């Protein structure tokens, strides 16, 4: 994995201790006992709206009916009604009015039929894609109506864990650029994402197990940043590790409990 500095001395169990304040000072890592990591939560925004609930649907239908009954006729409808009247009069009366009708080449009824045909030809894209049916979690085309997050498998200490992509902070760079670097590490450089703000959204702190803990290396703090994926085209991305795109509800399948708790705090699921 390019971009990672040296050997990472990190322990496996991510236990949570008493929460402290986030530290922003750009000092040398050796002076502080905490290792800093920047992690990126890459979100793909929903493409379509969520389906309406039963009550919402009923309400919408009722409102539509009320509005229809209260509304006035549009130009097209008036024209259609007028032409129907003329047709009826023609059939009832003895003399034919072909000359009068000769002006109207296209009748409103014809227009409507034409539009109907066009509408039948139009096929909307399916809301539930193939990826949904296969439950293929690595593709971006699934779950078009909710936020999708990127999870990668990372090796921490001697354990392989599913995490939001994170990378260790190097002195002299901002935490935001650390997070961006993390994103670039796992997805390649040509990712079009918009990072939201310079401030982190969440923090996860944990201490190393006693075996590895030294005076200078008490534990680690992970700072989470959020970004929106602008383009849905990831063909150029070089996916180096195992990755997954999951929704908020599915996060519980992969993340550890304490980590999940902290991550859930800043995830907005509307």
């Amino acid at each position, binding site marked *: 994995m390019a971009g990672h500095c040296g050997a990472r001395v990190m322990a496996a169990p991510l236990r949570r201790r008493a929460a402290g304040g986030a530290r922003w000072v750009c000092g040398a890592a050796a002076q502080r006992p905490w290792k800093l990591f920047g992690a990126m939560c890459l979100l793909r*925004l*929903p493409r*379509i*709206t969520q389906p309406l609930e039963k009550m919402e649907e009923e309400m919408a239908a009722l409102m539509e009916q009320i509005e229809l009954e209260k509304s006035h006729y549009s130009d097209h409808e008036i024209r259609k009604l007028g032409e129907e009247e003329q047709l009826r009069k023609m059939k009832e009366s003895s003399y034919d009015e072909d000359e009068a009708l000769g002006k109207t080449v296209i009748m409103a009824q014809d227009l409507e039929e*034409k539009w109907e045909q066009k509408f039948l030809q139009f096929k909307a894209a399916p809301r539930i894609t193939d990826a949904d049916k296969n439950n293929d979690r690595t593709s971006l085309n699934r779950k078009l109506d909710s*936020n999708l997050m990127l999870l990668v498998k990372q090796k921490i200490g001697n354990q392989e864990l599913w995490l939001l992509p994170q990378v260790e902070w190097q002195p002299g760079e901002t935490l935001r650029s650390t997070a961006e670097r993390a994103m670039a590490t796992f997805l390649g450089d040509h990712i079009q994402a918009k990072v*939201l*703000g*310079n*401030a982190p959204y969440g923090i996860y702190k944990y201490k190393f197990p006693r075996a590895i803990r030294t005076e200078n290396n008490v534990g680690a703090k992970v700072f989470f940043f*959020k970004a*929106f994926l602008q383009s849905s085209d990831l063909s150029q991305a070089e996916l180096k590790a195992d990755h997954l795109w999951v929704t908020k509800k599915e996060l519980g399948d992969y993340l550890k409990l304490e980590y999940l708790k902290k991550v859930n705090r800043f995830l*907005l699921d*509307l």
Partner: protein
Amino acid sequence: MIDLRDIPQWRGGFVSHGDPEDKQLIERGDPCNLLLPYPKLSLRQRSLLSHLLWKEERVATARENRLCAADNVLLGCHRSYRSRPTHGIGKFKYLLPKEVPKKRKEKVQMKEIDAGTEYHYGDVNIQMTSYDLCLVEHFAQYVHRLCNRLSIRVNESYAMPTKTNEVLFMEERGSKMQLDAVLTTHQRVVQIRGLSSTFAPILLEIIQSSQPEGVHLLMKQHTEADFKSRLKSRPELEELLAEMS
């Protein structure tokens, strides 16, 4: 001399003129209700007091005295009603020179420096565009209310003029037919001020997640060009100015 009776504020509180149930004897000598706040005085005391007050100014004429002596004592018997010749006595505003109301020049805008040490954005415009009028209006209302709830100050919330597009289809199968469709584009703008940079991405995320289908969202800084786009240009005025200079 200005008649105090004509100045309505002088009367102490609400006085019911001609109220038949009001049997309070308001004596002759107190046309200005000076004794109204003191209802507890006996009649004798009141008359003494009023006599003291109005010793020099016997303004009531004989005719009016007779009216006052009637049963329903009206305080307003000295009022110059519209039919009386003394109506309007005491008015003076019409004598003063007329003040021309100042022509208000459109204040361009108050701009704030953004991203200073305070990390505040200046005026931010949230522009919502769509073909569907109801949808865009409802969304604009939603954004406005959201900002109210989050105590973000909303400067103004206005609509830009609608643009009408005519779509012509040219079919080349056999007879050339032209099908017309008329599309109207509506735009609503909500202007915000004082957005802190720590909160801005959260707000953006909320608005983006609740964006309905078919609505374009655009958030940008407010500039003078945006302001000018709302005003109509006056070609004749510009021509004259060009000729003059």
